[in-house]
């Protein structure tokens, strides 16, 4: 071979030269082998790093549905208009070229003027003073780009018939930081604009439509507090890559179901790779990993009951009523309706800011679970149950002169004077009777009974917007600071105690279902969005018993009968709740809110109930702040709700009534 012939030559000098040449070529060969074969992967990755940008693509968020599959929260496509900078690059360069030429002409004029003034041609150094600095050049670039972009935007706005403005500062910022992504021109086009765009502008360089998903709540403010709301949060979530070059708009649930189940609802973001050139312009893109859509959350809520409750509240008390309603299935603890007024729009930005920060209305509070209220007379059945368990004879009467003294304290009784047995005391809601009976049974027994109902403890909601309420413990009532007056307060549901409407619903459900204190259930199941997916839904167990009341069934029956009388007796305080064709057991309550000088400043009115009497299924608790009395204020609302329940029972298929999960 040629090379070896030269090396073997019998010519020592040329042989040496040949060897040096061969060695040199061999060094190059080895170097190339090292770079191109051994380190190829490393250089490939450098190439990718400098020329690929990753974009985080948020996944489609899961829907929130009621128990019958009706949509409470879903996503809709939103089209926005974007300006694609890579398409405009040639025009940017051309515009810059033009303005540079213009600047040069101006420069030449200035130089000519200076020369004329000095009467001699300028030296190189002097000429250099007229030259453009890099900053000035950069500014020319910026102006050229802005001019081209404004031109395009003007054309688009003419054709769309929509005024569009280009903000120079935001445009420059976008160019510097996110060049490879389209610049957002107009968000949320309506169908007319989309049609006009597609017709007139589609395919032309520089502008195109981008698709995004936006969260909508089709039912407006219905169940707003339970649903929660979303806030803008583009960052990577758990389970994804922690670093992307660009983040597309994404959201995070803050409170309610959106917040408590955010991890399941949001799915898993995907990644897209954009190839950029050395100037940062986008060349092409491809999907690295597709996004995984989030799961749907199916609530135990019944949309019909929820709507009915909200409408009734609105009709009776108006939009700025401060109130709460809970409808619960007593057999299994499913929350069928949860209403808190004033309403909160889950589309958070639709809420007026002054409205949100109103110190009296406080619409952000979910009054069903997040606020403490004195229960007032609706606590009396529980006192009664404690007394019955301690041996009270329901037929024993107590004389009520219209008031009672506890120590030196005078407590008025709104019930008319007379002799009261248990039934009568419940019908007329007599303070005297229950204070007497309660104190006789002993406050410890009342406390112990209340503890079985888990007053003063949270009900463990996944949405975590809960207060535990206030209830004295045994050690507190046995301590030196506890007086008979405090015990008396407990007996008619005031004083050192506070509950949430949900706790009352659980308590009344326990009375209704024969003594099982249940964990309330808000979410029925979490299922994949695609019905054909192989993944099985996660079902939350229903009817989970928290504790047993462990009382005589006879005593519960006594209470139930008495509460039935409360609504059905023509003198019963809860008679406004009556619905023909349905036997409702209920109890009204009117709790006073006192100031430091023991003067009444406000009232909390209640109506707690369950139905049907024969085979209880629904518990309805209505609470209205600043009402008059539980009877006239709250019972009518419960009436409307029971009407709706009855209507559903009569019109729906038996399947609905028989729904057990």
């Amino acid at each position, binding site marked *: 071979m*040629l*090379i070896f*012939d*030269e090396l073997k*030559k019998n*010519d020592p*000098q*040329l042989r*040496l*030269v*040949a060897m*040096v*040449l061969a060695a*040199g*070529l061999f*060094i*190059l*060969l080895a*170097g*190339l*082998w*090292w*770079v*191109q*074969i051994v*380190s*190829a992967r*490393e*250089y*490939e990755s*450098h*190439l990718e790093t*400098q*020329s690929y940008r990753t974009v985080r693509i948020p996944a489609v968020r899961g829907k929130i549905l009621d128990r019958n599959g009706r949509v409470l929260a879903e996503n809709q496509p939103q089209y926005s208009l974007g300006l694609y900078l890579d398409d405009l690059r*040639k025009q940017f360069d051309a515009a810059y070229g033009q303005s540079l030429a213009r600047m040069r002409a101006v420069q030449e004029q200035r130089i000519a003027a200076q020369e004329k003034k000095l009467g001699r041609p300028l030296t190189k150094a002097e000429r250099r003073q007229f030259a453009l600095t890099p900053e000035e050049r950069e500014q020319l670039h910026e102006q050229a780009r802005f001019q081209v972009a404004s031109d395009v935007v003007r054309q688009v706005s003419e054709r769309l018939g929509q005024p569009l403005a280009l903000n120079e500062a935001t445009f420059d910022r976008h160019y510097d930081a996110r060049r490879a992504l389209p610049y957002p021109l107009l968000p949320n086009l309506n169908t007319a604009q989309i049609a006009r765009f597609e017709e007139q502008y589609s395919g032309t360089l520089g502008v195109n439509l981008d698709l995004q998903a936006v969260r909508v709540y089709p039912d407006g403010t219905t169940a707003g507090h339970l649903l929660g709301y979303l806030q803008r949060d583009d960052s990577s979530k758990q389970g994804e890559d922690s670093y992307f070059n660009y983040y597309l708009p994404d959201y995070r649930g803050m409170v309610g179901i959106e917040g408590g189940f955010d991890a399941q609802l949001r799915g898993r973001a995907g990644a897209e790779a954009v*190839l*950029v*050139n*050395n*100037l940062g312009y986008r*060349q092409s893109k491809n999907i690295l990993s597709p996004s995984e859509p989030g799961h749907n959350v199916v609530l135990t809520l019944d949309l019909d009951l929820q709507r009915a409750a909200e409408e009734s509240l609105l009709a009776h008390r108006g939009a700025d009523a401060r109130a709460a309603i809970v409808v619960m299935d007593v057999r299994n603890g499913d929350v069928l309706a949860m209403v808190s007024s004033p309403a909160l729009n889950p589309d958070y930005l639709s809420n007026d800011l002054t409205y949100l920060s109103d110190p009296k209305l406080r619409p952000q509070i979910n009054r069903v679970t997040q606020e403490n209220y004195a229960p007032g007379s609706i606590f009396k059945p529980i006192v009664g149950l404690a007394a019955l368990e301690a041996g009270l004879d329901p037929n024993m009467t107590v004389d009520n002169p219209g008031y009672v003294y506890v120590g030196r304290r005078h407590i008025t009784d709104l019930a008319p004077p007379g002799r009261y047995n248990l039934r009568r005391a419940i019908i007329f809601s007599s303070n005297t009777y229950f204070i007497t009976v309660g104190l006789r049974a002993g406050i410890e027994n009342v406390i112990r009974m209340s503890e079985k109902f888990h007053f003063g403890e949270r009900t463990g909601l996944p949405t975590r917007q809960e207060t535990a309420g206030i209830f004295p413990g045994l050690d507190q009532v046995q301590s030196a600071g506890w007086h008979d007056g405090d015990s008396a307060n407990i007996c008619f549901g005031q004083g050192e105690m506070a509950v949430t409407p949900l706790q009352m619903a659980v308590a009344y459900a326990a009375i209704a279902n024969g003594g099982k204190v249940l964990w309330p259930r808000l979410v029925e199941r979490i299922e994949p969005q695609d019905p054909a997916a192989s993944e099985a839904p996660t079902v939350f167990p229903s009817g989970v018993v928290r504790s047993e009341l462990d009382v005589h069934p006879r005593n519960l029956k006594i209470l139930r009968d008495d509460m039935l009388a409360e609504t059905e007796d023509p003198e019963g305080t809860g008679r406004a709740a009556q619905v023909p064709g349905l036997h409702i057991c209920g109890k009204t309550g009117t709790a006073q809110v006192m100031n430091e000088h023991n003067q009444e400043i406000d009232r909390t009115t209640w109506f707690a109930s369950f139905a049907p009497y024969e085979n209880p299924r629904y518990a309805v608790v209505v609470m209205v702040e600043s009402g008059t009395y539980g009877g006239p204020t709250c019972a009518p609302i419960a009436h409307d709700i029971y009407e709706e329940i009855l209507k559903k029972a009569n019109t729906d298929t038996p399947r609905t009534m028989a729904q057990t999960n």
Partner: protein
Amino acid sequence: MSATLLNQEHHERFDRLQLAALVGLMIIGTLFVYSATMANPVMASLPWYDQAWLRQLVWYALGFGAGAALCVLDYHTLARWSFVAYWVTIFFLIIVLVPHIGSMKFGARRWIDLGPFQFQPSEFAKLAFILALAHFLSRPADELRLPGNFWKGIGLLMLPFALTLKEPDLGSALVMLPTGLVMMFVAGTPKSYLLKLIGAVGLLAALFLVDVLFVPPGWWQISMEPYQRDRLLVYFGRDYRAFASANATPAELQRRRQQQLDDEYNVRQALISVGSGGLTGKGWRQGTQNALGYLPRAVAHNDFIFSVIAEQEGFVGSMLVLALYALVLFTGLRIAGQARDRLGRLVAVGVVTLIFSHVFINIGMNIRIMPVTGVPLPLLSYGGSSVLGSLIAVGLMQNVHIHRKGY
């Protein structure tokens, strides 16, 4: 009849193998200058007569013609005019340094602007120098023992070297050194002289590097253009900030760091280009480094053309290029071996060393085993003077081959 046979001075006229390798290189050159320049939209939109690859073809044709023309004359004739040529090129090397005649580009005054094209004297100085030195060294070997002759030879080398260095064009100056040294070695200069010379040069180079790389400013520093210093710093991986003045502000240091990143950019992009080519490359015109502009457009088609080839044709392509050059070089050595006399031998060896130095420095620069020195790759880099020079050099070799020993 046998007399005519005996008097025939050659069997075949040209060294076909070398010519074939040359044609191969020219084809590759055209293809990749096309690829490198077409990726740049500005250059791609030029009118057809301004397109780089077409101009490269024109230069190939012109150079080929010039080389062929040279072969008509016996190289002895050429050698007689070698000193004239030498002094003419020295003259041009001097006047290119004069401000209004030599045009300043990228901080160097290397070209004389002659309207539609530039003329680079250093390219032709290299060839004239080879001829002149060969002519000088072709005296009987014993005469070379005289120190006087040795120093004259050194002087012959130093003059164009110093002038080229002044432009400044470190790369072109640098390739003259090994050429001169090898020619002197092959001519039979006593080894002791050469070893002492190499020793001295090596010592100077070491001192030079130490001064450039380690001595902080303010101390005695060899004056160099800042960008040349920076290139050496980049090659040796020294931080620019070590060379800021003692009371430099943090902003100043930051600026220097940024400048270092910018300067390292070329080398880094070239390495990424070469490395990401892998075994078989990405395909002709599919080079993303080039197409996306990461390999700076200004250098992609000349000094860093090898990166373009390496990215697009991979290791296979690099080997092909190396093989073609090896063919040219070793056929040159064969020509040197078969040359009729010392003059021919020296001319051939000089040309071979010249081409080899260019190849080694340029490809080395692309894979970071040599600092960036702006040496073109013969026949592949875009540039009229470089192509002409390379083809004339090969023409000289062919000339020696044509007029070689007949037996």
